[in-house]
Structure formats: C-alpha cells, structure tokens
C-alpha cells in the first residue's frame, strides 16, 4: 500500500502541470474550432511519411548523443583524465549556441566551398545537407542534454557499491555494466527523451540543413497560409509523438533500487587511473570539443574580428543585451527548477497515476515549437490576465513552461538516488514533511537541481520566437539581436552577440562543474 502524497505537494504539482499544459490546451481549443479541417490536415499519407523521416532522424540523433555523452561524462567525473574539468565545460557549452546559428556555422565551415574545403584544397566534401548533416549537427548540439544530468548522476553514485563489486573479483568493465550502468539508466532515459523532443521540435537547424522534418510542415502550414488551425493540428501530432517518446522513455527506466543503502556521508569516489588509456580518452574528448565547440566558436571569432572592424554591435549595447538575457534566463531557471522539483518529488516519492500524469503534462510545452507556446500565452494572457500581457513576468513564465521538463529529468534522477530512509529518519526525529523536504531532500538532490536549472538557463538564453512576441516592447536580448542581424543574412554581424551568449552561459556551466567536482 502506497502512501498518498501530502496535500501541499499534490497541489503544487497540480498547479505546475496545469501551467505546463496551457500550450496544449490552446492547440485543443483551436483544433476543436474546426475539427474537420484539422483532421484532414493531420491525417494524410504525407504526414505519415514525414513523421517517419522525423522519427528516423530522432532515433539516430538520440543514440549518437548518448554515445557521445556517456564516455565524456564518465571520463570527466570518474577518472584521472588530465584537464577533466576543462573538458567538461568545453563539451557542455555547445548547448547554448542557437541551433539556427549553429547550423549556419557548420555550413560555413563544412559546406560546399566552405572553410574546411578551402583549407584542404579539395574539389568537394561529403554533403552537409540532408539527413547526414542534420544528424551530425543536431547530435553535436544536443548531447549536452544527456551529459549535464549524467555528470550529476555519476557524482552521486556511491563508490562503495563499486568497491564491493570489485572486491568480489569483478573486472572494471563488468563493474561498470552491472553496478554503474543500472544507476545511470534513469538519466540516460530522461536525457535521451530531451534530445528526442528537441529533435522533433527543432526547426532552425533542419531547415538550414535542408532536411524536411515535421516542423517544416508546421512552418509551411502556418507561415505560408497563416492557417493556425492546420498548424495547431500538426502541433497536436507533435504532442502525440511526445507521448509516445515519453512512454518509451519510462519503459527504459528500470525500477531497480538505485539509492545507497549504507549510512554515513557519501565518500568522494577514488578516480579510476586511466594509465595508457589516457591518450585515446584525451583524443576522444579533444575531438568532440574540437568539432562541437572549437569549430563553431572559431568561425564566430573569425567573423567577430571582421565584424568589429566594421562596427557591428557596440560593446555597451551588447552588455545591456547580455544583462537582459541573463536576467530573464535566470528567472526562468529558478522558477523552472522549483516547479520541476514539485513534479519530480511526486513522481519519485509518491509514484502513481496522478504523479505520472503530472510528469507527462510537464513535458507538453517542450515538444512544441516556441511560437506555438508564445501564441498560446498571447491567447490566454489577453483574455485572462491582460495586465500581465507583454511583461517580463509573462516572458519568464512562458520560458519556464516551455523548458520545464529539462529540469524534471535531472531532479527526478537525483531524488531516486536519495534514500527515503534518510527522510524517514528525519521524520522519526519529529520534523514535519515540508521541513524534511526542505532540510533533507532538497539539499541531497542539489546536484540535480543545479543541473536542471542550468539546462533551463542555457535554453532560455537562446530562445527566440517566444521572446520576440512575449517580451515587453523594446526589451531586447542577445538572441533577438542575433535575429535582427541574421535576417538579411549578415551572419558575421551576429558573431559578437553570439560570443557573448557563450560567455554568459559559460558562467553557470563552469560553476556547475566546479561545484560538482569539489563536493560530490
């Protein structure tokens, strides 16, 4: 017999879930307004074919992102890899490059007659366009979605379990498979889910790389004919896809007991000595950092050196934009991490139909293109809370519900590793549930909270369509500045705001890796 969730937590979960389904509710309202047209748009053989293409890309990118993140996460947390903290930061930062800028950078570097082709002096390179290019670029920009929570989970693993396994004569690889991997499944599943949702809802990268994915159908339905019913119907298809991916992801999360059983403080794990394996390990990290970080940043620096000469964005203005970006993103990160904590606590501590429903609901905003989230908030805000319309408060709220699931996964994974017995002990000592939650559970899950907040922060920094529509008038961010610079295709001029975006994002990313390394 399971205990029911305390009322205050259930209420908090309900509020968060209700906020998160606003965009989906908006889609339903629009679709219900013209059901016939919606059905005829959504249910065609064309839709089916494009969904299949999109899912193929999604599967390829998700598998690749996990394959990149798993070794880097393990190497930078659990081994004596030289410069592991630096590698961790460098390998996380690609997440903050907006995908439409990132794709453009890759085309400039690897595309026809691009920088690499010029440098090599060859007649042609394999095409960057189509499935292959979209696979490469999206994998390189999404693997940090797995890496960030994975590093958090690796730090929380109790080394005693591994020690015990090794003492019983298991070889390192067998220890990894039988002891470490089972504890990583929850974060790999939730991180993989985020990658796959990112891929199905991305538009910027796939359109530049000329891969016809499902979001392009939405774009054609909505931007060309201004037909919001068709766009909403296709958005509803995205929600259905998301539900399928959620089910798949929850299947992958094994129900094993993965929190530590022993009492006492977590001992910092002894790093594995890589020995001569150090060199291939370094080579792998360097390769990923080179392609995912150094290459796009190198192109940006090259453009910036030309852009500064022609005076693109003055530094004073750029600093103000950076302040706006930071403020809004930090607000969304704080609000989002708090909201996700409620959802995750319910899902982990009081699993049941209600908790599962709330958790799935919290993902709705992430599966949709930003413009649909923005239009949903325009719809509700002008009707229900007109004074909040086009305020920073509404913008922060919009970014929060758009990116909420980014924090749910890491926080849930952290809570899974906190033994409920510690909480029970605190309860036994006479503390109330809220008190225990505040003083025991939350601090123990700190790594997950920080990872979740950082993920929301990094995404909010680069968000564009919702920011353009929901921000107070005249409120500009680094992302909106990049947009104004790139509309006419002068990507060189966007180099400085794009580099600033990276610089501002580097702060939380660095702190995250620093803190985690110092206090596991």
């Amino acid at each position: 017999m399971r205990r029911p969730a305390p009322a205050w937590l259930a209420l908090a979960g309900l509020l968060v879930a209700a906020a998160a389904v606003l965009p989906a509710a908006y889609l339903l309202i629009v679709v219900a307004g013209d059901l016939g047209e919606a059905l005829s748009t959504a249910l065609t053989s064309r839709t089916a074919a494009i969904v299949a293409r999109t899912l193929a890309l999604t599967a390829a990118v998700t598998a690749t992102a996990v394959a990149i993140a798993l070794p880097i996460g393990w190497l930078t947390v659990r081994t004596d890899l030289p410069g592991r903290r630096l590698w961790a930061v460098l390998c996380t930062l690609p997440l903050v490059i907006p995908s439409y800028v990132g794709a453009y950078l890759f085309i400039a570097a690897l595309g026809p007659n691009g920088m690499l082709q010029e440098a090599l002096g060859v007649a042609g390179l394999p095409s960057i366009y189509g499935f292959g290019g979209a696979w490469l670029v999206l994998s390189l920009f999404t693997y940090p979605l797995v890496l960030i929570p994975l590093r958090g989970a690796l730090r929380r693993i109790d080394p005693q379990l591994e020690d015990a396994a090794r003492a019983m004569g298991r070889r390192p690889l067998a220890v990894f498979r039988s002891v470490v991997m089972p504890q990583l499944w929850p974060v790999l599943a939730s991180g993989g889910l985020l990658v796959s949702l990112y891929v199905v809802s991305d538009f910027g990268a796939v359109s530049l790389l000329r891969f016809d994915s499902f979001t392009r159908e939405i774009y054609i339905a909505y931007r060309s004919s201004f037909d919001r019913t068709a766009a909403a119907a296709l958005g509803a298809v995205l929600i259905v896809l998301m539900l399928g991916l959620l089910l798949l992801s929850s299947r992958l999360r094994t129900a094993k007991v993965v929190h530590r059983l022993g009492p006492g403080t977590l001992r910092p794990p002894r790093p594995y000595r890589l020995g001569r394996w150090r060199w291939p390990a370094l080579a792998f990290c360097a390769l990923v950092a080179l392609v995912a970080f150094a290459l796009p940043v190198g192109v940006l620096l090259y453009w910036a050196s030309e852009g500064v000469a022609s005076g693109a964005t003055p530094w004073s203005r750029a600093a103000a934009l950076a302040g706006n970006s930071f403020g809004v993103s930090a607000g969304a990160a704080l609000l989002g991490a708090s909201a996700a904590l409620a959802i995750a606590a319910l899902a982990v501590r009081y699993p049941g139909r209600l908790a599962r429903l709330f958790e799935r609901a919290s993902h709705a905003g992430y599966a949709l293109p930003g413009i649909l989230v923005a239009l949903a908030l325009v719809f509700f805000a002008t009707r229900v809370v007109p004074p909040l319309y086009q305020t920073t408060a509404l913008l922060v709220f919009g970014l929060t519900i758009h990116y909420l699931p980014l924090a749910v996964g890491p926080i849930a994974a952290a809570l899974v590793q906190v033994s409920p017995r510690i909480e029970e002990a605190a309860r036994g000592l006479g503390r109330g549930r809220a008190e225990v939650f505040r003083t025991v559970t939350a601090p123990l899950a700190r790594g997950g909270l920080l990872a979740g907040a950082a993920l929301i922060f990094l995404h909010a920094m680069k968000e564009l369509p919702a920011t353009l529509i929901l921000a107070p008038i005249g409120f500009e961010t680094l992302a909106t500045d990049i947009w104004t610079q790139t509309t006419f295709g002068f990507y060189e001029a966007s180099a400085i705001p794009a580099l600033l975006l990276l610089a501002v994002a580097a702060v939380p990313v660095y702190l995250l890796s620093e803190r985690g390394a110092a206090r596991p």
Partner: protein
Amino acid sequence: MNPSAQIRTALLVVVAAALLLVAAGCGFDASSDSGGGAGEPETEGITLYSGRIPAAIGGAVDGYEARADRDVQVRYADTADLAATLVEEGDASPADVFFAQEPGAIGAVADAGLLAALPADVLELVPPRYRDPQGRWVGVTGRARVIAYDRGAVRPAQLPRSPFGLTAARWRDEVGWSPASSSMQEYVTALRARYGDERTREWLEAMVANGAEAFPNNVTIRDAIAAGEIEVGLINHYYVAQAVAEAGPDYPVGVYFPPGGLGSLMLLTTAGVLEASDRKPEAVAFVRSLLQRPSQGFFTSSSKEYPLSRAAVPDPSLSVPLARVPSPGGDLIALDELQATIELMQEAGAL
C-alpha cells in the same frame, strides 16, 4: 555553511528573484501600455508591430518621431508570427499599426476583420495596383522577383528570358529556389493566375526534375550562389543589393530582371491601421508618413527597395523602372489562392 542554512539562502534568493521579476514586470507593464491599447491619455505615441527588422525601417521611424514629435514603440518579430499574434490578441491588441514584410500576412489580419479602412488621401499616395481593393492596407515598398546569378560562372546574355527557361539542361542542378518561402509561393500564385494551373504544374515538375535545390529562404540562396554552390537562383532583388552594400562592388552575385514570362514580379511590403487602436488619427499619420518623401527615400537608398509612392524617386541603381515590373495586385494574394498554390506545389513535389 550547513545544508539547511544553504537551502534557506537559496530560498531567499528565489523569493528575492521572484519579487524583482514582479517589480520589473510591473515597471515594463507601464512602459508597454504607453504605446496604446489600454490608452492612457497622458502618454504620446503609437505602437507599431513591425515584421521588418530595425535596419529596414529604423530611419523611417526615427524620421517620423523627429518630425511629428511623437513616440513610436516598435515590436519587432517575424511577419507571420506578428500576424498570428494580432489574430490571437483581437480587440485586446496594443498595436496601432502593422507593417508587414509580405502581403499575405496583412491579408490574413484584414480577413480577420482587424484592420480599419484607411482614408482615401493615404491610399491614393500609391497607384491602385499597390493597395488593397477594399482600402484596408497600402503597399509601402516593393521588391522585384529576379534571377540572381554567379557573375563568375554566368554571363547575363546566357540567362533565360524568364524562369520558365530554368528547366533547360544547361541549368541542371544549378538552380536554387525556396518553395517554402512566402515570396516563392506568391510568385507561383501569380503564375497560376497568368498561365493556369496546368502550365504552372508542368513548370514546377520540370524544375524538380531538373534538380532545383530547395533552400529555406532568399538569403541562403544568395549565399549559396556567392559560395559557388549553385549558379542561379530565384530571389528578391534587394537581398543582393544589401550584400553589395555590405561587401562592396566585387560581390560575386549579380541580379537579372527577366524580361519574359511574368517578368520580375513585384512583391509588396504593406502597412495597415488596427481597428482596435484608440489612436487611429495618429496611426494613420504614421502610415501616411511612410509614403512621404523622407521615408520613401530612406527605404530606397538604404535597402534599394522600390518606392511605391507616386511622389518618390527610385534609387538610380535600380536599372529597371517600377512601371516595367509587374505586380500581382491586391486580389491575387487572397488566402484561398495561396492555399491552392501550396497544394499544387505539394502535388508537383516541389514542397
């Protein structure tokens, strides 16, 4: 710091941040309302929703502000996104004026009954074919559909008389177009009106069969020509003009106005006044100012667009006079026509 003290600090930070946000929200709220909508009489000026970026309209807005001693608050975003936003806002819209990059978007807003009729003296600043037959919006500037080409690989004399000729074997795998962009779709809509669906479908199918490469927009086609990836592409003339202004006269992409077929069709940027505005006289004054000499001069000199006002003089660099560039006319951008165009393009495998 022990864990509970730490979490207390964290909670304090959260509360402080929340308070700051609310405060900031209220502060920004006041400023955003000053544009109109709620209509406080103590503030002056209008709110403009602009589908065109600051660089494309800044000079015109600044000039109006200085001359009229009025404030213009501008929300910049993608034209289609703003059109959808206006439709969702309905009567509650804070916008007074909508300035759209494409006529289809303002048509959608007009069809939703959200635009007020413009006075005749404003409409008559432009020839009839550059304004809404029902008088709800007016064209401000024009961009011509042209064939852009690689000046290193192609001589203008080799180029076909019209885009119909781009299906020849000479251009196999060398043509870029952007079937998903509104400008290409408007062009195809005009083709259908002139040549009928059958002829248009044949052309679309022949383009696909000839290996026309689909790009997401005009800019990427231009850049692909500049990079030597393709030799020619169907784009709007001013994207090349802007790149030339940025990169200098050695820019490798040239512009060719095809004389045959539809010629180089004129696509309009348009402006209209919102029915929900409670500052209509001022909003109309702003739209009028867009069609007066200083603003028209800004558009034509900065981005090399065609000025549509009868009073304005095109930039000397525009070698083809406005009168020789055909326009689709207001009735051609009807939304059901656009829908039929998209279906035709999908059937032909172009989209």
